[in-house]
């Protein structure tokens, strides 16, 4: 079973979101997602300063096998992207919840995350899929 962290929120499309102490939200893809994708070879993140909307495409992750859209769990301004992924996209495979994060958003309404799944619901959703 892949790692699922209790403190995170999840989308059914396998993104995770973490609310930081300063109120910003960090977004990445789950351990389950990176395992299913296989070796990640490119990550296309949104531009810093751009706006993303909850439930809409914000980037693309490409593995050897397939390309997948990345959806933002919240609406807001992109305030940082993980530049490590430019040179070392495999970081997503090695550390999906820590070093392999994708982008950070300053949310316009953090309560949007209330609609996302908690870890228990995500575990169930992954089990139902398999």
């Amino acid at each position, binding site marked *: 079973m892949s790692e699922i962290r209790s403190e995170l929120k999840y989308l059914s499309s396998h993104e995770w979101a973490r609310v930081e102490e300063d109120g910003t939200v960090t977004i990445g893809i789950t351990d389950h997602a990176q395992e299913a994708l*296989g*070796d990640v*070879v490119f990550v296309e993140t949104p531009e810093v300063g751009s706006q993303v909307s909850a439930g809409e495409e914000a980037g693309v992750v490409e593995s050897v096998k397939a*390309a997948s859209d990345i959806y933002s769990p919240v609406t807001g301004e992109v305030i940082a992207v993980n530049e490590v992924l430019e040179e070392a996209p495999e970081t997503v495979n090695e550390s999906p919840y820590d070093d392999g994060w994708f982008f950070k958003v300053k949310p316009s309404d953090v309560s949007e995350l209330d609609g996302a799944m908690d870890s228990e619901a995500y575990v169930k959703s992954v089990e139902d899929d398999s």
Partner: protein
Amino acid sequence: MLKQTPLFDLHRDMGGKLVDFGGWNMPVNYGSQIEEHHAVRNGAGMFDVSHMTVVDIQGTGARDFLRYLLANDVDRLKMPGKALYTGMLNASGGVIDDLIVYLMADGYRLVVNCATREKDLAWINSQSEAYDVSVAERPELAMIAVQGPLARGKVHDLIGAAALEGLKIFQGVPLSGEGHADWFVARTGYTGEDGYEIILPAEAAVQLWQDLARIGVTPCGLGARDTLRLEAGMNLYGHEMDDDTSPLVANMAWTVAWEPAERNFIGRAALTAEKSAGISHKLVGLVYTGKGVLRAEQEVSAPGVDGVGVITSGTFSPTLGYSIALARVPVGFADQAVVNVRNRQLEVKIISPCFVRSGNKVF
């Protein structure tokens, strides 16, 4: 219920990630497809290819039958063990399958694809009725490919070099001696590297796989097999060719033996007509060094040229570090093309369809 090779339990025990591959439960990787790919380019890797089918053709009519059945000419095989790559065509000149045929001491041996197994056998059997031949599938045999710059040395360490040292590329030899009954080792493969394909009794395959792993041969899944073959510019049945695609547009014209002119093979009339009318499409290689991966079924166009082409196989090339693809395009396409990827127009370079040989970039 998915079919299993004799190595199935071993794949699972060694951490293979198993997927449905043409009805077979096969390992796609053992953790990292890219690491397995590099193992073959830089060292030695092994693949379970027991899902492919070995068919032995024997009898006094075997030579005449295969000269009718196959587009390449088995008369090019001058000594036992020699191998020939060929298409097996239908009457319209489409490719029923691509396969390797070996001349054996007592007849011929075909190695055909797994996904086309039933179709192939039905066709071979129906076409053989007019000939004095026996067609014997050999499901009791397994097949392991060992590939990479260190592959031959590793195999020699295990089963002795004496019988194998003098083998030329595309040549095989049956092993003799105790414990090697029904072993056949050929210097063939599908990765653009040197190595062997070892056909052996199913009950011996588990031991060989374990012995190879023990001496440092990396177990590789079919994921790496696909990126390796694509870098080598090798066709995959159902992608670069199929029942509706002739060998002339699939970069397989070299496998069609037109001489002697009096040899009638299935599909000859259709290919002759196609050749004299002029082929409409060709198979090319595409290179995209930007961010993104070319994928099968994406549309290819060229400014100022009529018609569109299609990517038949596309991937990220682990050796080159960017994306490559094979594409079937109108013959008027020259050096540059544009691929439509998720509403972006990517400019790609067109090359002759081979990207990497023996670990090196070749374009």
